[in-house]
């Protein structure tokens, strides 16, 4: 009797191990192409040439490691474009975060004429592909350039101008997202705060915002990523290398006349990827939490 239970117990354990082994196997299989891609990228940045995954030297033998591709790190230009990328990303985090959390609150909590129309219009705006707006935006930026004071900050070919355009294109989605998060906060908590003696603004700042921190964090992360890797807008509305960001710098490396050093491009690409990877490492728990149902806990 006893031996049989032990036997079945063992069998059960074996089954479980086999079960999880299959799961892992399938998971690894499915991410294999991506892993290979990353490995390739990494290897390419440290070699003269690669053939498949293998670095080869001038004679075509395996070997030929080099740090040559990373020499761009000593170029002050890379640090300037990195700073520009960071500027655009942070500009988006702050700009979109601030405006959408205020607008979302208003749209979620207050009744005013035109509220419904505004909401549907925002959704419509979000559906517009930004490419179709490029020419119109160009004229707007040109116009801003002519305004004294604002021109040098937010005009054509300025970092501020790029950030402004990116922020406004992201706002429709941001406002909707935030409105959704505010909709989930109980009215009673807000009413309690009003009765306790808080002004509307204080309620927003001290009571409501802390409760949608996960939502704010999600918005910030998405905006940071989209600002960090922005290409179309900076590429279209900047000229020269002073206000270029990383993706634009990458594009500039692909010259039309001289042969392109693809291994250097891989290195710059990897360089651009590093902060994102680190960022993900620290925020993945938060992101997962958001994907699986938003804010949790609380009363």
């Amino acid at each position, binding site marked *: 009797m006893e031996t049989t239970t032990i036997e079945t117990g063992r069998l059960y354990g074996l089954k479980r191990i086999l079960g999880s082994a299959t799961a892992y196997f399938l998971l690894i299989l499915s991410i294999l192409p991506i892993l290979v891609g990353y490995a390739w990228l990494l290897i390419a940045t440290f070699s003269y040439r690669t053939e498949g995954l293998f670095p080869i030297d001038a004679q075509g033998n395996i070997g030929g490691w080099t740090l040559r591709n990373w020499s761009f790190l000593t170029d002050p230009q890379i640090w300037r474009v990195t700073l520009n990328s960071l500027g655009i990303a942070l500009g988006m985090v702050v700009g979109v975060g601030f405006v959408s959390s205020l607008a979302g609150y208003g749209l979620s909590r207050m009744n005013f004429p035109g509220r419904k129309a505004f909401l549907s219009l925002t959704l419509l705006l979000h559906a517009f592909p930004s490419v179709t707006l490029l020419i119109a935006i160009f004229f707007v930026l040109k116009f801003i350039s002519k305004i004294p004071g604002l021109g040098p900050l937010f005009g054509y070919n300025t970092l501020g101008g790029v950030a402004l355009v990116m922020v406004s294109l992201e706002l429709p989605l941001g406002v909707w997202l935030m409105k959704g998060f505010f909709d989930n906060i*109980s009215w*009673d*908590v807000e*009413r*309690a*705060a*009003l*009765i*306790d*003696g*808080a*002004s509307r603004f*204080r309620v927003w700042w001290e*009571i409501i915002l*802390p*409760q949608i921190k996960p939502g704010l964090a999600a918005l910030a992360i998405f905006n940071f990523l989209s600002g960090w890797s922005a290409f179309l807008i900076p590429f279209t509305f900047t000229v020269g290398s002073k206000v270029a960001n990383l993706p634009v710098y990458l594009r500039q490396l692909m010259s039309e006349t001289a042969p392109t050093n693809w291994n250097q491009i891989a290195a710059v690409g990897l360089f651009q990827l590093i902060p994102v990877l680190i960022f993900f490492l620290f925020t993945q728990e938060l992101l997962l939490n958001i994907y699986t149902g938003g804010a949790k*806990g*609380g*009363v």
Partner: protein
Amino acid sequence: MKVELVNLTKRWGNVVGADHITLEIEHGEFVAFLGPSGCGKTTTLLMIAGIYKPTEGLIKFDGKVVNHLAPKDRNIGMVFQSYALYPHMNVLQNIGYPLKLKGVPKQEIRKRVQQVANMMGIGHLLDRKPAQLSGGQQQRVALGRALVKQPDLLLFDEPLSNLDARLRLSMRSEIKRLQLELGITSIYVTHDQVEAMTMADRIAVMKDGKLQAYCPPDELYDRPRTLFIAGFVGNPPMNFINVEVVQEDGEYHARAEGFDLVVPSERGEKAAGRGRVIMGVRPEDVCLADDGIPGEIYVVEPLGRDDLLNVRIGEASIHVLADPTLNLRIGDTVRLRFNTHKVQFFDPQTENSLLWTD
């Protein structure tokens, strides 16, 4: 503080939340708003708090119209059914928040919060977050937060309906005791008539946004002015029987099929000669007696201390409380005696009382 509502009305389009409510609450009085779900209790309360703007009518505090005063300038404490604690703040911060908003110094806040928390029996929980508290403890925090700023008016919106029956009982008496001790004018919204009856000095009964009655509990119980109040107040609810009241040989008889009851003339004369009227009699005013009117038991519901019998006499169905040791069964015949000094009569059309309308 004395509170007056004058024709207070709230409408959203054609949805009516509160409909011309007029009443006065004396200083230090404990008033209950009683009514079924959706009758406008919360709406009225939120208008008094300044959260909803009245569509019509006036709210007066101590004779001054406060319609346009912001909630923060009304010095009101409110307890919500959902507790509405601030989930990201601990108990100390929750209770202290109204004081912080008033600009009270930190030391002083701590002292006063500790004092209130001790009074509520949650003094040892000050650094817990609301999510780490039981429902009863959260309720006390909410109460503490409403009390800490020493409000002129306390509003309760069904504060006990999320608690279990035993806790509800003890919190009920605790709230009542606190209110008496502090002497703060209070409005207590509930749909539980026992709560209203036991706690309130006066009860405002509401239905479909309208004020049905506003009087002390015993009057509400003994002299219901409408059919709705008679049926809503009291547990188990009042029995209603369609009868015709006729005068014969100087006596008043309430008659229906299989049913003939002599009623006192001061009650009977008001219902006589009107054709069909509705007679109301509470289950506790009916008892089993050998010389009573015979009927057949239709349902037996054991309540523990009593059995609740549903007895059929003709077309009428009457609830009676009976001693469980009698071991009555469905189908048995019992005889019922009615305490005729407590019977009520209502007009079936207007549903108003024939006895107590002036």
